[in-house]
């Protein structure tokens, strides 16, 4: 006689084995935990170009502007704030300077100089704040230009110009 199949008394209940799905879910989670890199949001410094495309004839007098000059002498970045030479920093302050092993100009000196110029500035004509010109040589690392720009922004100065080379496309 053929064996009778046993009837499951719980035939009303359907069970699915979720173990495999949970395994896949954990694998996905591990993948995303390893693939995700958290990074800080990138900010920007406004350097809007003049709307007159630099064609205006009216320029502030040289004596009015505060000029910061950056040059590269060998591997050393040297700076002048107006006619005063900026001393070199004693420390390797930033990751870039630690990487190159060469200290940069003392940014506190530049900040103090611009602050003094700002305090003694008398507004003339259209310039309500001290105009600042940042003049840098072509081979100066970009970091130092941003450092000076950051100082100018910190001092709430609005009139910022970059000195133009004779032929910018060279």
């Amino acid at each position, binding site marked *: 006689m053929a064996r009778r199949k046993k009837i499951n008394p719980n035939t009303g209940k359907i069970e699915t084995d979720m173990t495999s799905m949970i395994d896949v879910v954990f694998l996905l989670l591990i993948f995303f935990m390893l693939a995700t890199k958290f990074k800080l*949001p990138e900010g920007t410094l406004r350097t809007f170009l003049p709307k007159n495309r630099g064609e205006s004839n009216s320029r502030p007098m040289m004596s009015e502007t505060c000029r910061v000059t950056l040059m590269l002498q060998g591997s050393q970045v040297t700076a002048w704030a107006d006619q005063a030479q900026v001393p070199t920093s004693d420390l390797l302050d930033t990751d*870039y300077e630690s990487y190159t092993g060469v200290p940069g100009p003392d940014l506190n000196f530049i900040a103090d100089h611009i602050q003094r110029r700002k305090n003694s500035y008398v507004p003339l004509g259209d310039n309500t704040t001290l105009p600042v010109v940042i003049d840098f040589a072509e081979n100066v690392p970009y970091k130092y230009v941003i450092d000076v720009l950051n100082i100018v922004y910190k001092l709430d100065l609005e009139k910022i110009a970059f000195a133009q080379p004779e032929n910018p496309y060279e």
Partner: protein
Amino acid sequence: MARKKQKKMPEGVDMDMTPMIDIVFLLIVFFMVVTELTVQQAVVVLPVASESRVEEPQPGSRILFVNVSFGKDGKEILQLMNGSPLTPERLLLELKAEADAYGIWEDNPFNPDPEKKLSGLEVTIRCDQGAKAGVIHKIFAACKDAAIYKVRCAAIGDRFEDPYAN
């Protein structure tokens, strides 16, 4: 005689895993939303500037990224968005094409000539902090000639790890 109730030894401890599975699913959804699997921009070491601000893009605005990074040979590479390396002259042509395609122009307060209108495009320069600053002049000149005046320099507010560690 009263019947002694025999206590059955428990066969195993059943734990309800449902809340844990819920948490795992929430974590997966979080990571799926947060993770960017494609490299959107060239990898550059941006300079640190405490006064840099994260500006939310205005609705309808278009921001182009000009990336200045280093190639494997140590030479500087100029790219528009994630495109191929460009010369400054080529960058000017690309910017002009982008400005024409964008099609939004602003009146020039200094010149009523309709040919001298200013583009509403915005350009953000993402330049490696070790790159030569002279490239900025070239990018500014290209933007000026393409009638783009809204130019920004990208920087980060702070950095917590050494980018040159590897």
